[in-house]
């Protein structure tokens, strides 16, 4: 008997969509006041929010991207897992609790707390939208590619319809359910993803008698690369000069600096991602915010440990050649591993496993894009519309109506961009979003919370400085031109990559901090009285819920 996995895949996915839509409509009826759109009422428990954070954070890049990178390049894919996890300590130790205590709805609340509202909120909205749209684009392009592979579409029309479908669904989740609905979708997704990954991990380890060394050995043997289990197969490579056959010292150093730059962006980017930051507002107290991060670290850590089994399992059992034949970027490694574990292509078990893991991958993408759309529409409504355009005179109802309209605009814009950007490398967009978040947002948030002297010019310069440095350096990097996999192919002769690194973080993150310091020092503005309020609020939670009363 043969079973068509595409039918099963579609059915499971449709079931997920129906269940989550039901939950979202149910959640929308729980909303009591307009501002529940932003924070879901602020009454979630630390455990619920921890799961939702995990669901918001573990994107297609984590599940499909890391498994694929390990399957193709071995150890280096694991570097992503470590960076993505360790980054949570920044959020735990420095950001989550003070942010919860001193803001209400957006990242801009904390940045603008003691500053002139209009310039700082405009900057905060700009960087929120830029970071979120880059991230959104990566997820939607990934969704198109995944569907095409799972359902066997080859023409771009079908891919475009998938992107439109994902976009429409995320707009519905966000406009109908707001933060409460989005939170439930993310909780469901986190549960599904953890269950699916655990199932596959156990099945992989079963095949290797629960012996990690045996799994690694088989993966290395299957790869045919004696160095497969060592770092340096993808990042920080030693570059051999083709003319002399010697190691090119300069090129090799640049390649290693690129690895350090990526590591910096990964570890500092998480705590600057607006869609993650606003999740801390969904719990009532800073203590609950801290518990959320603890639960998130537990879930995310367990998941990234499982990427070892998924990635090396795919390398050992499926093999790089079979993966590459389906997708050059390796993003299908995890679904192909699932098919193999179920019994292989053409078997009933294989079809069932492929369908389950494929549907989980869709669920993963949907939950993340909903979070991103919510973060950017909240910022456009609360920071830009209410506090810049209306100067604080808008009613909550007007604000939230604008937020819903903004969700349509952001959604539509992302659909259009994703259709145009289909050929782009997904991993690069995510790494860029992390680099921008670490350069533009993290310095400003940290200095706002902990530096008494920080002022309006410092905040504005830190945000725009980090943003422009990150995006600008990227434009002149090998990612855009002059490299083997550039956006502009080298054979066009259009080459302007005077910046040697693919990730701008090494320069742009310190630059963001420097501009924050320089802007502060060149301005006479002092705001010690408001800093007293911010500091006392941030450490004690005094007057919570009334923060940002301008």
């Amino acid at each position: 008997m043969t079973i068509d996995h595409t039918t099963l895949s579609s059915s499971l996915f449709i079931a997920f969509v129906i269940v989550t839509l039901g939950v979202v409509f149910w959640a929308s009826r729980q909303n009591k006041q307009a501002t529940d759109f932003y924070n879901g009422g602020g009454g979630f428990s630390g455990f619920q929010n921890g799961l939702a954070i995990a669901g918001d954070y573990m994107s297609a890049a984590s599940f499909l991207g890391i498994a694929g990178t390990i399957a193709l390049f071995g150890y280096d894919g694991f570097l992503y897992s470590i960076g993505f996890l360790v980054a949570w300590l920044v959020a735990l130790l420095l950001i989550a609790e003070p942010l919860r205590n001193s803001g209400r709805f957006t990242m801009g609340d904390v940045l603008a707390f003691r500053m002139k509202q209009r310039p700082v909120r405009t900057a905060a909205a700009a960087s929120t939208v830029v970071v979120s749209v880059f991230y959104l684009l990566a997820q939607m392009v990934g969704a198109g590619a995944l569907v095409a592979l799972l359902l066997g579409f080859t023409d771009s029309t079908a891919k475009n319809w998938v992107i439109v479908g994902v976009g429409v669904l995320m707009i519905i989740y966000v406009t109908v359910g707001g933060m409460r609905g989005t939170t439930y979708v993310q909780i469901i997704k986190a549960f599904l993803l953890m269950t699916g990954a655990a199932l596959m991990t156990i099945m992989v380890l079963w095949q290797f008698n629960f012996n990690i060394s045996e799994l690694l050995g088989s993966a290395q043997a299957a790869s045919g690369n004696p160095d497969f289990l060592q770092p340096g197969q993808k990042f920080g490579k030693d570059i051999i000069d083709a003319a002399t056959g010697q190691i090119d010292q300069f090129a090799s150093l640049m390649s290693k600096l690129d690895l350090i730059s990526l590591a910096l962006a990964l570890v500092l980017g998480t705590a600057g991602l607006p869609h993650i930051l606003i999740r801390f507002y969904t719990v009532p107290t800073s203590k609950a915010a801290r518990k959320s991060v603890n639960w998130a670290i537990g879930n995310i850590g367990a998941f990234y440990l499982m990427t070892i089994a998924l990635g090396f399992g795919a390398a050992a059992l499926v093999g790089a050649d079979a993966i590459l034949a389906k997708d050059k970027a390796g993003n299908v490694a995890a679904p192909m591993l699932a098919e193999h574990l179920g019994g292989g292509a053409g078997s009933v078990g294989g079809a069932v496993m492929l369908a389950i893991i494929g549907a989980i991958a869709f669920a993963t993408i949907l939950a993340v894009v909903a979070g991103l759309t919510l973060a950017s529409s909240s910022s456009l409504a609360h920071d830009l519309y209410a506090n810049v355009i209306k100067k604080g005179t808008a009613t909550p109802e007007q604000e939230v109506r604008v937020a819903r309209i903004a969700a349509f605009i952001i959604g539509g814009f992302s659909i259009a961009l994703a259709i145009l950007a289909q050929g782009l490398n997904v991993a690069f967009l995510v790494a860029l979003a992390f680099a921008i978040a670490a350069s533009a947002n993290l310095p400003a948030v940290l200095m706002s919370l902990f530096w008494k002297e920080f002022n309006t010019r410092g905040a504005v310069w830190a945000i725009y400085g980090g943003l422009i440095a990150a995006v600008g350096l990227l434009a002149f990097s090998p990612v855009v031109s002059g490299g083997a996999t550039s956006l502009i192919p080298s054979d066009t002769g259009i080459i302007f990559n005077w910046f040697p690194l693919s990730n701008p973080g090494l320069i742009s993150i310190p630059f963001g901090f420097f501009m924050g310091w320089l802007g502060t020092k060149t301005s006479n503005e002092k705001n010690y009285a408001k800093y007293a309020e911010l500091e006392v609020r941030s450490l004690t939670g005094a007057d919570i819920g009334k923060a940002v009363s301008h």
Partner: protein
Amino acid sequence: MSQNPGVWEETQNSAEFSNLRKSFRGFAFPLTIGFLSWYFLYILLTAFARDFVSIKVIGNVNIAFILGLLQFVTTFLIMWLYERHSSKVLDKASDEIREVVDGRLGK
């Protein structure tokens, strides 16, 4: 809150708040520097000490894997340490100050 404008600065200048700030920063800041240093030591070793991290320790498990797994261990450990410090020291101190401030704000 405008009926008691001095409350924030007075609280900020109080001995109780100074202690809370010291207790928080004295724990969180060194720990942040510590875990970032440890993380970048790991990254620098994978970039520049390839021969060292390629040494196999247990079967096919080399030093690079051991170091990577230790990053997981230290992350969980720091999370646990911070939770313990918060629940033993910080929560109580911040609750006490909050009650005083909220009282003065008429909440």
